C-alpha cells in the first residue's frame, strides 16, 4: 500500500484521478496498469463523505483484486481506464508550480492534488482551449440519473424519472458491471467514464439484475449535463473573480421586481486577498443582473462557466449590478489569481 501526501515529482501520466478529492485511491497492477479508482465527493459538509463508506471501499478492493486475478487476459478492457495525455507530465513542468517547489519550507513547497487540477484549468484557459468539461470534471452518476449505494458503489440505489439512466432501463437494485467496456470497481470508475465521454455519446452498459446479465445503452442529455456543485472543489476557487455570489432568494427577487428566469446573483462576499471584484467596482450586497448581453445566468456555476469559457486573459467583462435601487455598471478584468 502506497501513501502519497504530496504531488511533488509524481508522474501524472501514471496517476490520474479527480485531483480535487480530499481522499482518493488508485488500484494498480505491479506494472502500473490502472485497475480502478475509489473516492467520490458530492459537496461540502455532509456531502463531503456521503458517497464514501468502509464497506464501499472494501467492496472496491475486492473487485480490484478480481481484476488483478484476471490480468493480463483482461488487458484490452482496461485500456479505457488508463491515464490520458495531459499538457504536462510532472507538476514541476508547470511554471507556477515549479516556483512553489523551489521554496525552502516543506509546507510551502508541497504541491497539493488540487493544485494540479487548477493548473490544468489555468493552462488551457490561457491558451484559449478551456472547455466545459475542464471546469465540471468527473460528473457524478446522479448527473445521468443514477444514485449509487455508497455501501456498494456499483449497486444502483435509485433512478431519477426521465433521466438518461431511466430511459436506458436501468433500475434500482441493478449491479453495474461495465460501462463503455470498462469493468467498474466503484462510483469513481463511473465518474471516470463520464468525465471522458463525448457529449451525446451513447455508452454501453452491462449490469446484473437478479442474476441475469442485461445490456443497454446510456445516452447523455445534451447541453450542460456535466454541471453540478463545484463550490467544494479547491481547483475552482481560483475561478471566483474576487467575490462569491449566490442566487437571490425568491422573496428578495420579488422585492426587487426581478422576473423569474432572469439573473439575480447577490455578491455575498468581496474577497480581501483577491482584488479582482474590488477593482471592478463591485461591492458586497450588489446584485448582478447582467453579464455582457446575458441575463439568464441563474447560478454561481453558470456565472463562472460563462466568464471563463468566453473571456480570455486581460479581457474586460461588463457587469450590470443593482445597488440601492439603481443599475450600476462595473468592468471586470479577467486574470488568474493569485498572480505570479
Amino acid at each position, binding site marked *: *500500500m*502506497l501513501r*502519497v*501526501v504530496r504531488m511533488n515529482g509524481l508522474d501524472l501520466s501514471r496517476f490520474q484521478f479527480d485531483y480535487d478529492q480530499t*481522499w482518493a485511491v*488508485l488500484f*494498480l*497492477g505491479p506494472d502500473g496498469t490502472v485497475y480502478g479508482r475509489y473516492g467520490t465527493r458530492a459537496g461540502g459538509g455532509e456531502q463531503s463523505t456521503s458517497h464514501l463508506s468502509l464497506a464501499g471501499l472494501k467492496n472496491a478492493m475486492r473487485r*480490484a483484486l478480481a481484476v*488483478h486475478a484476471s490480468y493480463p487476459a483482461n488487458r484490452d478492457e482496461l485500456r479505457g481506464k488508463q491515464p490520458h495525455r495531459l499538457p504536462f507530465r510532472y507538476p514541476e513542468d508547470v511554471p507556477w508550480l515549479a516556483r512553489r517547489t523551489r521554496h525552502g519550507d516543506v509546507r510551502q513547497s508541497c504541491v497539493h492534488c488540487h493544485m494540479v487540477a487548477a493548473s490544468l484549468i489555468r493552462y488551457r484557459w490561457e491558451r484559449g482551449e478551456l472547455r466545459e468539461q475542464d471546469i465540471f470534471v468527473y460528473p457524478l452518476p446522479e448527473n445521468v440519473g443514477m444514485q449509487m449505494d455508497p455501501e456498494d458503489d456499483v449497486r444502483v440505489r435509485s433512478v431519477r424519472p426521465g433521466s438518461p439512466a431511466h430511459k436506458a432501463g436501468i433500475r434500482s437494485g441493478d449491479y453495474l458491471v461495465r460501462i463503455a467496456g470498462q469493468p467498474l470497481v466503484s462510483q469513481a470508475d463511473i465518474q471516470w467514464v463520464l468525465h471522458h465521454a463525448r457529449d451525446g455519446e451513447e455508452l454501453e452498459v452491462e449490469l446484473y439484475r437478479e442474476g441475469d446479465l442485461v445490456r443497454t445503452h446510456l445516452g447523455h442529455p445534451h447541453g450542460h449535463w456535466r454541471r453540478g456543485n463545484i463550490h467544494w472543489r479547491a481547483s475552482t476557487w481560483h475561478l471566483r473573480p474576487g467575490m462569491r455570489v449566490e442566487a437571490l432568494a425568491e422573496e428578495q427577487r420579488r422585492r426587487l421586481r426581478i422576473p423569474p428566469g432572469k439573473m439575480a446573483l447577490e455578491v455575498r462576499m468581496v474577497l480581501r486577498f483577491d482584488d479582482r471584484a474590488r477593482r471592478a467596482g463591485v461591492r458586497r450586497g450588489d446584485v448582478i443582473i447582467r453579464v455582457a448581453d446575458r441575463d439568464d445566468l441563474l447560478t454561481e456555476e453558470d456565472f463562472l462557466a460563462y466568464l471563463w469559457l468566453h473571456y480570455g486573459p486581460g479581457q474586460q467583462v461588463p457587469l450590470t449590478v443593482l445597488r440601492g435601487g439603481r443599475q450600476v455598471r462595473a468592468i471586470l478584468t479577467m486574470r488568474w489569481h493569485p498572480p505570479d
Partner: protein
Amino acid sequence: MKRVCIARGVLLALIVLALPAYAQDGGDLRTLLKDVELGQSWVYDDVDAAFARAKATGKPVLALFR
C-alpha cells in the same frame, strides 16, 4: 463590538503561539502530519519502492492520495 474584536485577536494570537515550532522550520513532512499512522504495510511517498514490492510479491498496489 470593539471588545469582541480585541477578544478574537487575543484568541487568535494564542492559537498561533501554540502552534508547534517545527511547523515553521521545514522539518520532515512525516512529523508535520499528525494523522499518519505508519504501519509496516505502508510505503510512504515512494512510488518506486511501492511498485518494486508489488513486483516482488505479485500483488497490486493501493495508492492512497490524501
